[in-house]
Structure formats: C-alpha cells, structure tokens
C-alpha cells in the first residue's frame, strides 16, 4: 500500500469520526408523529403515542409500519434488499427509515 492510500484512508475515517462526534449529522429532540412519504408525497401521519400498524401499499410492493411504545418501525416488506426492515426503530425528529426500492420514507416530525 502506498503512502497516498494510507493518508486517504486515515482522512476518510477521521472525517467520519469527527462528523459523528460533532453531532452535526445526528438527530436531536424527540418527535410527535411518524410521517410516511411515498415518492416524496405525504401518505399518512401516525402519532407516536398511539400503538398502531399500517400496511403501506405502493406500485412496487408493501411496507408494514408499526408504531409501538413511542417508536416507529418497519417490520415487514417485500422490497428486494429488505434494508428498511433491518433499520432501527426511530423516535427523534428527522430520523428516517428508508426503503429506496419502494421510494417509501418514514420520518419523525
């Protein structure tokens, strides 16, 4: 490995750590509602203090959104990567769960 390579790797890791530590890219206060968007359009608003579940149907497939104990989570979906299901539950303002294949976003406001 060349010196250039090591410098690049070190700079990238340091930038990631610094950004993470600075909190500039971290969520802040708790939110009230989970808002579901499909392709940028608002689809539903679910208050976080009320346990519910909702199946979001799009042209591409479905995502099951569950609200429980003040957290919103995607518990099931038929998208090809399943990343939305693996993402952690959310509760703070601007936190998101994203399903890129279905263009579905759950965002706390």
């Amino acid at each position, binding site marked *: 490995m060349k010196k250039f390579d090591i410098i690049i*790797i070190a700079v*990238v890791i340091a930038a990631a750590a610094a950004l993470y530590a600075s909190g500039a890219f971290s969520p802040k206060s708790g939110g009230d509602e989970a808002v579901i968007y499909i392709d940028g359009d608002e689809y539903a608003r679910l208050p976080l203090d009320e346990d519910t579940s909702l199946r979001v149907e799009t042209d591409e497939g479905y995502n099951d959104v569950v609200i429980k104990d003040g957290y919103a989570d995607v518990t099931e979906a038929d998208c090809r990567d*399943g990343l939305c299901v693996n993402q952690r539950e959310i509760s703070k303002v601007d936190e998101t769960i*994203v399903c890129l294949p279905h263009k579905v976003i759950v965002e706390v406001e």
Partner: protein
Amino acid sequence: MSKRVAFYGIFAALAMLMGYVEAMIQMPIPVPGIKLGLANVIVIIAMYFMGNKAAIGINVIRVLMSALLFNGFSGFLYSLSGAAASFIVMAAAKKIRSSGIIGVSVLGGVTHNIAQIGVAALVLNTPGLMFYVPALLAAGAVTGVVIGLVAKYCLEYIEKTGLKY
C-alpha cells in the same frame, strides 16, 4: 479494433455480473446506500488496464443494462449519480502521481455512497438521510480497501499474463 470490441464486451459483462452477484449479498449494516461495490472492481481494472475513456463506456453500459435487466428504473437515478460522481473523483485521484489503486478505490467508494445519499435526500426531500453520512464515509473506506485490493491483485495477474489492450 475487434480486439477492443471484445475487451469492451467482456468488461461490461463482468461489471453487470458483479452488480448482479452483489444484489444477492446482504450487507450486515442496515444503512441505505451501503454496498460492497463489486462492480467497481471491474471499473477500476478497466481504468488502469484500458484507460479512462474505455472505463467510462463500460460504466455507462453497465448502469444502463443493469437498469434494463435487473433493477428497473426506480434506482436508475441513484446508480447513475453514484457511478458518475465516483468515476470523476477516481479519474482525478488517478492523475495524482503518488496515488495508488487502493486510495483511488476508497475515494471512489466514499464518493459513490455520498452522491447516492445526497441525490436520495434531494429527490425524496428528506434531509434526515444525511444522518447516515458518517456511517457511509466509514463504510466507503472499508469497502474501498477491499475492492482496491481485489482490483490490484487482478491487475498484477493481468500484467503477468502479458495481455495487452
């Protein structure tokens, strides 16, 4: 000329195949935009073995054909923006005389991740996506090293066989 056509075909097919293989690999970290970037192995080899112009052609064919064959056009904007941004950065980094393949690959991986999440944040109008930036930087560094090493060993092997473009 016909030799060049054959090289283009082989590399484009390999790049598409890598994308397909990658779709079957589950990434352990649930962050949108993170992937191994196997197709980038081929793009980097093409860059060093055949030059930038050929690598651009192969890259464009890969993105277009993968969209047509596997992914559909829902992810087309993301893959195109990721591929274009990372290619520009890699080509620039490659020009630096002291640069190595692994550094180029890391920069490519990181740029790819950031461009994709940036475009997604714009297209979907969701600034909250930027929370993933630190994770995507770190992931890009890790996958970039892996991809760079693979490309490096492949290139050494190609050189040993005496194959010429």
